[in-house]
């Protein structure tokens, strides 16, 4: 019985070790990305096969864009608050409300323009083929509003 038990345990241990080994090997690169300070950018580097120089440029663009984007978002939020206040005071479409809607709309257009400009800059910082792929992917996922609106109607 001792020999049988030994074979049983050996099989189980080998099977378990093989499972754990392959699982950790297969997820090692992703776990390294997740441990990164900015995992989403580390993922971008890996996904679009960027060199260190290209990646450094992309990070710089990203940080600059994020700062501008946050400032614009605050302005849009402020505009929305103003619009909300106007709407709470009346039940009609007043010229002030129309003006505020236009201003808020302009800010949103500005936001989208900034986004597109950023995407183009990032794609130009990548190798041509990867840049093309990045642009197609990011526009599909974010910039084409018809895509999402069509899904909801």
């Amino acid at each position, binding site marked *: *019985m001792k*020999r*049988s038990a030994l*074979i*049983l345990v*050996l*099989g*189980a241990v*080998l*099977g*378990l*070790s*093989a*499972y*754990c*080994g*392959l*699982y*950790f*090997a*297969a*997820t090692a*690169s*992703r*776990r390294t*990305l*997740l441990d990164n300070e900015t*995992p*989403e*950018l*580390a*993922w*971008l580097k890996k*996904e679009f096969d960027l060199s260190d120089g290209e990646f450094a440029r992309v990070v710089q663009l*990203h940080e600059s*864009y*994020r700062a501008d*984007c946050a400032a614009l*978002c605050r302005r849009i*939020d402020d505009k929305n608050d103003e619009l909300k206040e106007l709407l709470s005071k009346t039940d009609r479409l007043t010229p002030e409300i129309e003006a505020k809607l236009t201003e808020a709309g302009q800010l949103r257009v500005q*936001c989208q323009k900034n*986004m597109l400009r*950023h*995407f183009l800059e990032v794609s130009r910082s990548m190798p041509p083929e990867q840049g093309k792929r990045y642009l197609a992917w*990011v526009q599909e*996922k*974010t*910039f084409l509003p018809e895509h999402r609106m069509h899904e909801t109607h």
Partner: protein
Amino acid sequence: MSGLELAHGRSNRGALPNVKMNDPIESNEPLGRALREWKVAPSLPPRFQEEVWRRIGWAEVHRASFWWSDIRHGIEVSFRRPALAVSYVAALLLIGLGLGMAQGRHASARMDETLETRYLHSIDPYLAPRPDR
């Protein structure tokens, strides 16, 4: 005299004069009467009922161990053949490798999706979850 003795005609007291052993029972009145009057009163061994319940209890308790000893015996017999033992180890190894690879790929794909979503949220304020203001 027992019914059996009557039927076989082996009584020590001698056969009944009117009993004809080769006649059918319906037409053999003394044999029929003897059979009708025959009462069997078997006596059970002492503590019979208690013994039955004891055995039932023992079987209930040991049923699992019978099952387990059958399996153990089967394993021992199987593993006496080196080919089967090697096959068992190899099968577990392959299953472990296959499952590890499949699960690892699945987990990697999930992590990729998470990171992709994080990147998209970082560049598109319309996608990013916004804190309550």
